[in-house]
């Protein structure tokens, strides 16, 4: 049983306070949807959890995780950008992240099959459409096991079929004791607890 929580978080970017006094918590099998208008700090919060932004105040902890690893090292981050190299083939892109991220990793080809990209393994990633690029970065979440998924608008580039597929993958992840934290405008299609940011206090 794991529990990811943040307390009294305050984030300042470029001299502007994005949010302050923010807390959140999510346990194994639970999905947290962060909603709110543009500029309310959804992406900033995800990046703070991922350790890519430093919180001015507050702390984040993953109870029940591996003690010698940081939260960021036990998390996947799926941002706006796909982290793909157009010059490499689909399989090379995925194999690189599997080898580089390390840890508990699976078979790259099988993961490509589960996102419906097994027909294109040897094509350069440059030839993929936006939706296919998204699927390929989603395959990264599968090829290396990390208990925490930090997703920033995960379904934005996906068509209905892709969204259904992704919903299934998130369900599997939650059923396996994972945690999902997603910043989103639209409904994710799974049972979530909603946390609204940027509303009137």
């Amino acid at each position, binding site marked *: 049983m794991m529990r990811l929580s943040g307390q009294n978080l305050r984030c*300042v970017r*470029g*001299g*502007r306070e994005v949010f302050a006094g923010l807390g959140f918590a999510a346990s194994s099998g639970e999905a947290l949807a962060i909603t709110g208008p543009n500029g309310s700090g959804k992406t900033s919060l995800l990046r703070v959890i991922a350790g890519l932004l*430093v919180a001015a105040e507050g702390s984040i902890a993953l109870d029940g995780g591996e003690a010698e690893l940081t939260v960021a090292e036990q998390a996947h981050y799926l941002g706006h950008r796909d982290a793909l190299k157009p010059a490499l083939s689909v399989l090379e892109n995925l194999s690189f992240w599997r080898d580089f991220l390390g840890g508990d990793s699976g078979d790259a080809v099988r993961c490509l099959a589960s996102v419906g990209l097994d027909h294109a393994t040897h094509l350069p990633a440059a030839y993929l459409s936006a939706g296919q690029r998204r699927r390929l970065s989603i395959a990264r979440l599968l090829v290396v096991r990390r208990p925490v998924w930090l997703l920033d608008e995960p379904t934005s580039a996906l068509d209905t079929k892709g969204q259904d597929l992704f919903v299934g993958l998130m369900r599997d992840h939650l059923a396996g004791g994972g945690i999902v934290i997603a910043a989103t405008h639209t409904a994710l299609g799974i049972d979530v607890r909603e946390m609204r940011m940027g509303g009137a206090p």
Partner: protein
Amino acid sequence: MSLIDLANPTKFLALTARVLPWLAGATAILLLVGLYQSAMAPDDYQQGATVKIMFIHVPNAWLSMFVWGIMSIASLGTLVWRHPLADVAAKSAAPIGAAFTFLALVTGSLWGRPMWGTYWEWDARLTSVLILFLMYLGLIALWHAVEDPSRAARAAAVLTLVGAINIPIIKFSVDWWNTLHQPASVIRMGGPTLDNAFLIPLLVMAIAFSLLFITLHLAAMRNEILRRRVRSLQMMQANQRAA
């Protein structure tokens, strides 16, 4: 008032407001005394009256390196403790350090003119100071290239510390390079056998210039803190309009 209190910008402003007039006064008095003593110092039997440039040149050269040291300490404060006052200290020291370095270059060049017969000679010391000057200018350019002060502070801190590691290496390299190419033209500046008649005014001037730096630095830090307050007030105003 403890050192921790000083780290608070508001307390810093209050304290420096009280200290600065005294500091400025002490600097002025010491500078006058030093200048008088320098003027009264005897001429050198070899260099004549030009030796008096030394009383300006040496303190400036000393400060050009001292200020980089101050900035390095402030940079550690930025990177390790993420202290906002450290950013301010590093940023406001750079132009002052550059000015001292520039003065060291100009006075060194003027001092060398009668010796070398030219205003610029690729002398080891002057060349090192010139490179240091270039590094100061680069650092100032970096501070001005980025709008967000905290982002600029991190980059400047890394560069300052890398510079601090590199300056001795550059100094050593240039000395080595210089002896390789022109072993004859190295002139003795000062040297260990300095007479007391020179040493005392030099010491007074060194202290006076160090005080001058501290005065200017504290004043520049106050300006920078106030400038940042103006900036954040303007930002708050912009946000209120939007809301």
